């Protein structure tokens, strides 16, 4: 008796070995894809979108690459997801997490072929991950007490993060900028307060940090270009026709004179509104919505600087930095909180005019102006800087740092190896495999730099046999060196997140023994 098919027409089912194979291969393919971007000498990828315009992105950021891929393999999707979460949570290490998960699965595949049950592998991986984390915890450096040292730690972390990105040429310059910006935040992780403005032209070296606030807008015609001791009203209100919002109301007139009258009334209303706004005693008015010519003219007459169409975030940020509230009604001038700043002026960056607010009340905010040759360079620079800022702001909260350059991986691998020797039972194979997967990261870094990875890693392993060794791979000189001397540091939080999420993802994929794919929803062919 043949079994009728249970599933719908296009649905399919993969079982046991085949399912496992499909997910291993999918996950490893993704890991191999981003593998070559790992480390300071990692290469970039060009992503071309299939949408209109075929816009091109050049990047080395794992999360950005994976986000833009169209993937069908479910296991691969798990990896893309962990990279995204890593990006949201700590901002950096998005490539490492995928590579580590891929390596863990590669090792697991070998074990499965050697007839070890996935559950045993998972149990081993769990033990190993726990042990690796403890090993890192034992070796962390915490300089929170010593402000100067802490700053230099942050500096080094920023440089380490940036050296794998497009900014590596001027990494000191940018690291300085990022550290300054994060220190201004005073411990909050609100990266909103740091504004990044991209202006093509000039070179990356011309980028600078500004302690004020820069708004990418023009000042209205005939209005003052420079205001000292500005009182700013930040508003979100209609400054165009200001329609009557009660529904169903409409204007119906029967003669030209009446049209004129209504028009007059409308103008009067606008004038009223402007007067009310002026009654706040301000000399700068920033609105989120449009300002029509007529009110603009009125503002110009009153010598008030009016800025229209500041986008939503711009407005919020401006409210935040100047300490003013975002107003929409203007009847009670005495109780509206106005924003203050020492100086508003128009500045030129490249070809463009921007408005610069300096001496703002709240010192937290600042702007970073990025300059660069093209949009692609600027976009990538922004992503790199964002990574650095994320890592730094997280490190300010959790000040534990580690050495970089493959050092943490070797430390973990050593401890995990010890554990494997002590553990009885089949789990020890899995634990051993875990340590091999960890070592794969320095190997990849060395490979990407075109170095003799086998030689270097072997050297490194020997060095690490000594207690308290600081050896790592220095990719620039192409040799094993003391990481502390070379100032290569990484944040503990990033490493921990990489370790835990990669293990979790590998576990998740390992637990699967069957893949059921539903029939894809039919879509109309748009091609």
């Amino acid at each position, binding site marked *: 008796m043949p079994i009728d098919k*249970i599933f*719908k027409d296009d649905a399919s089912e993969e079982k046991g070995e085949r*399912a496992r194979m499909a997910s291993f291969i999918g996950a490893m393919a993704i890991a191999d894809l981003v593998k070559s971007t790992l480390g300071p000498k990692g290469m970039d990828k060009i992503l071309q979108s299939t949408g209109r315009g075929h816009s091109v992105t050049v990047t080395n950021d794992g999360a950005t690459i994976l986000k833009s891929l169209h993937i069908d393999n479910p296991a691969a999707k798990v990896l893309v997801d962990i990279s995204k979460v890593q990006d949201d949570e700590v901002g950096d290490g998005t490539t490492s997490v995928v590579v580590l998960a891929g390596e863990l699965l590669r090792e697991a595949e070998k074990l499965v072929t050697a007839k070890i049950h996935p559950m045993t592998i998972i149990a081993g991986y769990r033990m190993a991950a726990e042990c690796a984390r403890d090993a890192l915890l034992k070796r962390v450096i915490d300089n929170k007490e010593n402000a100067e040292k802490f700053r230099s730690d942050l500096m080094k972390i920023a440089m380490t993060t940036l050296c794998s990105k497009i900014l590596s040429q001027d990494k000191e310059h940018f690291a300085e900028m990022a550290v300054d910006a994060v220190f201004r935040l005073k411990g909050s992780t609100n990266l909103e307060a740091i504004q990044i403005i991209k202006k093509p032209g000039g070179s990356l070296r011309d980028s600078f940090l500004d302690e004020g606030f820069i708004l990418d807008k023009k000042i209205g015609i005939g209005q003052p270009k420079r205001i000292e001791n500005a009182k700013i009203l930040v508003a979100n*209100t209609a400054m165009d026709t200001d329609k009557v919002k009660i*529904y169903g109301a409409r*204007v119906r*007139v029967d003669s030209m004179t009446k049209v004129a009258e209504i028009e007059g009334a409308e103008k009067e209303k606008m004038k009223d509104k402007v007067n009310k706004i002026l009654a706040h005693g301000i000399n700068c008015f920033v609105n989120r919505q449009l300002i029509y010519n007529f009110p603009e003219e009125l503002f110009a007459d009153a010598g008030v600087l009016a800025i229209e169409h500041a986008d939503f975030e711009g407005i919020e940020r401006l409210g935040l930095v100047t300490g003013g509230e975002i107003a*929409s009604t203007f009847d009670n001038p005495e109780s509206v909180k106005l924003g203050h700043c020492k100086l508003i002026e128009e500045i030129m960056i490249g070809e463009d005019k921007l408005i610069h607010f300096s001496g703002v009340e709240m010192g937290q905010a600042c702007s970073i102006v990025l300059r660069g040759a093209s949009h692609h360079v600027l976009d990538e620079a922004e992503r790199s800087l964002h990574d650095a800022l994320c890592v730094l702001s997280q490190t300010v909260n959790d000040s534990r740092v580690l050495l970089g350059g493959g050092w943490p991986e070797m430390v973990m691998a050593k401890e995990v190896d010890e554990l494997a020797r002590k553990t009885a039972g089949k789990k020890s194979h899995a634990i051993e495999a875990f340590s091999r997967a960890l070592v794969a990261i320095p190997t990849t870094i060395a490979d990407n730099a075109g170095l003799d990875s086998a030689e270097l890693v072997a050297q490194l392993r020997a060095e690490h046999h000594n207690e308290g060794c600081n050896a790592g791979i220095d990719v620039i000189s192409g040799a094993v060196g003391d990481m502390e001397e070379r100032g290569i540091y990484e944040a503990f939080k990033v490493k921990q997140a990489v370790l835990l999420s990669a293990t979790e993802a590998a576990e998740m994929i390992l637990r699967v023994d069957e893949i059921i794919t539903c029939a894809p929803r039919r879509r109309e062919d748009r091609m």
Partner: protein
Amino acid sequence: MALAFDEFGRPFIILREQDQKTRLRGIDAQKANIAAGKAVARILRSSLGPKGMDKMLQGPDGDVTITNDGATILEQMDVDNQIAKLMVELSRSQDYEIGDGTTGVVVMAGALLEQAERQLDRGIHPIRIAEGYEMASRVAVEHLERISQKFEFDVNNYEPLVQTCMTTLSSKIVNRCKRSLAEIAVKAVLAVADLERRDVNLDLIKVEGKVGGNLEDTELIYGILVDKDMSHPQMPKQIEDAHIAILTCPFEPPKPKTKHKVDIDTVEKFETLRKQEQQYFDEMVQKCKDVGATLVICQWGFDDEANHLLMHRNLPAVRWVGGVELELIAIATGGRIVPRFQELTPEKLGKAGMVREKSFGTTKERMLYIEHCANSKAVTIFIRGGSNKMMIEETKRSIHDALCVARNLIRNKSIVYGGGAAEIACSLAVDAAADKYPGVEQYAIRAFAEALDSVPMALAENSGLQPIETLSAVKSQQLKENIPFYGIDCNDVGTNDMREQNVFETLIGKQQQILLATQVVKMILKIDDVISNSEY
């Protein structure tokens, strides 16, 4: 196919377009149905128990779910076969009724079908088999009742509850933190439980999740969590001792439903209309302020001007709160949902000790905590951690199972021992009872006993033990010592005694499993004709 002919030799047409339909009859129909049922059970078999594997399901839109919850797997599977659909229904009804044991019930049904097939080959009539199963299930359920144990717990001593929830959680991916999650689930259930009436309204427990952080950071909030933030970025982020106005009317100009026109033809009218509009906003805010509200929660949006007025009058507000959340907030804070500003009164305000906004990670995501509510009945379980959203989803499902188990225990305090112990005990009892029944049913009852063995067998198999060897050892141990606590040692602890391992399951859950599985199998056995359109 037998055809009837009239006197002119033309066939009577009984089924329309007969030749386009495939038709299975008699024993073939039963065999085909059984094969389909078994195929579904086979898929789930490997997910059973603490060492069970997960399934990866790819939905029609390419979304991925990884789970080992039987009901979820079957729900998301694109099943086409009618009998397979019955099995899906079976698992779903176990989910609705009990919430846990959704995999077990399908495996059980599969085993019963397999045994039935063997009896059919012997030439026993399907109805006799069905009746035998019915008798056997009654015996099994009674036996379960006998071997069940009551255990006592109260609000202060909830350790037994935690232990039972841990059994449920140990088969899920979250078993790393099963202890803390089980505690959270039990505390949540106890917080909303009505111990007098022995009833728990699970609607009062909201499960929210957010990726990132650690699984250990999962927390129980005595209050409500809303995935929203304050409507104006500069409103206070923390309100103590809040009086909450819960509104379902927007802070917007009125929109009369009847068709109307307001014509503006003179300057005066224009002026008055303008004034009215301003007044309207002012009144709305003033009304809220007048009744003493310190926080406004609204189902709809705010006009920019109204938003500023609220901010200006120092009245923090939250907009676009969904209907379900709104109801929960109303229950928790003891407030009333107010559909019109005119109906706002001080009594209708909800009260909460603390309302605060909290942000997460490097992205700008904020959530609103409403805590220390007047009526502390509503709680929220906030799941953190998980490296990806599939993990969060799976954790949610696991927590749901644990909550259901805790609720069942509050309803009925009886437990049986897990790890296959209950099934083995039942199997022994049914086997013993079989001999007392004269007639063909005896064979069916024995088959039932054998089917009961398949659950512990699957457990042993999934745990990497020798299934037959382990099962027979445990069985003889149970029979020899006459103690129904011996089960399969899935976690390799070293003892078969489930009391020592603290592996419990609820009595009603187990009973329901057996009853539901028997019912479905009976239904399948009674089908002797399958007519289906061959083209679809």
